[in-house]
């Protein structure tokens, strides 16, 4: 089956737009378990995007990266996080550093910023996926913002993972994916980071009966 380059790039744009859509859902969501579900959904869209890029360009190593993303970020990490949440005494985040409507507006501004930064670079590219670079940068920024705006360790971790999703999309958009060995290293890092953060959250819960990371700022010897 042959797809014209124009349709192909629209398809990639659409998939990455769905990724950005789930980012905003995460920013607006207060329930911890729903945040994790949305992250799994976002990773599923990432798998879809990577698969579409692999199909359109014929770079088969992207399929492997997509499959690994599917296993690690759609199945394993959300499961680990759900287990962590089951142990916690908080189900939803009531106090945030930035409230939801303001957070959404800031994220809108971040998307604009990402678009303006990548504007001079994008026309230089000749790849099918070059428009997604702006979206990838926006996702990284929103993930970073989520880590700043939230107080609970679990949602901060989700923010970190969203950032990682943005980086993966950026790598796919800019160069059709990194070499497989690098991807493997990154996946391993992310998996270990998520596991460590899960354990750390549990320790936080045991020490303070709470997973509010603000408690850590007043730690004394």
């Amino acid at each position, binding site marked *: 089956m042959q797809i014209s380059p124009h349709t192909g790039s*629209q398809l990639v*744009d*659409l998939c990455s*737009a*769905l990724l*950005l*859509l789930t980012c*905003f*859902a995460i920013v*607006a969501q207060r329930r911890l378990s729903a945040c994790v579900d949305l992250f799994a959904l976002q990773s599923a869209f990432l798998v879809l995007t990577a698969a579409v890029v692999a199909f359109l360009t014929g770079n088969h190593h992207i399929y492997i990266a997509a499959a690994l993303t599917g296993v690690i970020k759609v199945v394993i990490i959300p499961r680990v996080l759900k287990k962590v949440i089951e142990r916690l005494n908080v189900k939803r985040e009531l106090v945030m550093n930035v409230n*939801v*409507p303001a957070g*959404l*507006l800031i*994220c*809108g501004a971040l*998307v*604009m910023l990402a*678009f303006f930064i990548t*504007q001079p670079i*994008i*026309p230089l590219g000749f790849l099918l996926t070059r*428009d997604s670079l*702006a979206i990838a940068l926006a996702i990284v920024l929103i993930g970073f913002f989520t880590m700043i705006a939230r107080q609970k360790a679990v949602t901060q971790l989700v923010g970190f993972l969203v950032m990682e999703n943005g980086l993966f999309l950026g790598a796919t958009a800019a160069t059709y994916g990194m070499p497989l060995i690098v991807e493997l290293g990154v996946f391993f890092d992310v998996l270990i980071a998520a596991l460590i953060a899960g354990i750390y959250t549990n320790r936080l819960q045991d020490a303070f009966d709470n997973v509010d990371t603000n408690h850590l700022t007043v730690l004394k010897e």
Partner: protein
Amino acid sequence: MSPIIQSLLLVTAQVIVLLTVSPFLVGLIRKVKARFQCRQGASVFQPYADIAKLFRKQPVISTTTSWIFPATPYILFASTLSAGLLVPTFISQTPLNFSGNIIALVYLLALGTFFLILAGLDAGSAFGGMGSSREAIVASLTEPAMILSIFAIALTAGSTNLSTIVHKTALLEGIATDPSPHLMALAALFIVALAETGRVPVDNPATHLELTMIHEAMVLEYSGRYLALIEWAAGLKLAVFLSLIANVFAPWGIATTLAPTAMGIGLLVYAVKIAGLAVLIGVLECMFAKLRLFRVTDLLGVAFILALLGLLFFYILRS
């Protein structure tokens, strides 16, 4: 056939379609909800009977009210119906497309809302005032989201005229095929439609005398034919929003010429599309709980940002 007679026929046809279809949509949503709750539910044609019954009843008007109170149902009904004439239903040509575009549509609907808010305050009851204040919050938050999402659509189609937008998309002309801005605008407009028509995450249409109600609180003082007009106008508003969503985002099958067969197919496809959307709303109402009033701003904030992104995407991804 002269153009004047033709457009008169078109207006008549559209008015009949909108008026007959709107109580059916309300009934259909109620039926879907009832089946999901394991109830038999009233017939889908119950709203017709309700409206007919209310028209036969004598209205009661409080002595403390001014002229706004009896005038509002007529203004609301007329403005909603004329907004309906700006939206393509089964044919891509809209009856009033010479006199107004998509922006007129938004503010015709806002006119009705404005008078309903005044009428809620007019009788001086605590419930009415509360409902009006809440409706004002919701209306002021949905308006920017709706305008922005509509601009995103208008930009991709290159026109603010709904007939042109739908016609172009139906024939896949020009750049009306870019999916990303459309997707964002669709999501935003769907949230706006739920909020504007008083559906579940924002308002619960099935409650009376509850502290959380919005629309029902405003119309609490109405009875008889006034209430019938208001209920019918609420159904019409739902029909207008569903037609807008169905035809702007999925105009396939709509009649683009005045040929009888095309119009027949268009009518059939239109009925299936809006019935499908009504069932979707019914299912969503069963899946989600009503949001707390102060969380409604979060949802409408999402709608606003989505619409803004739709606009941004149009500029960024145009290359």
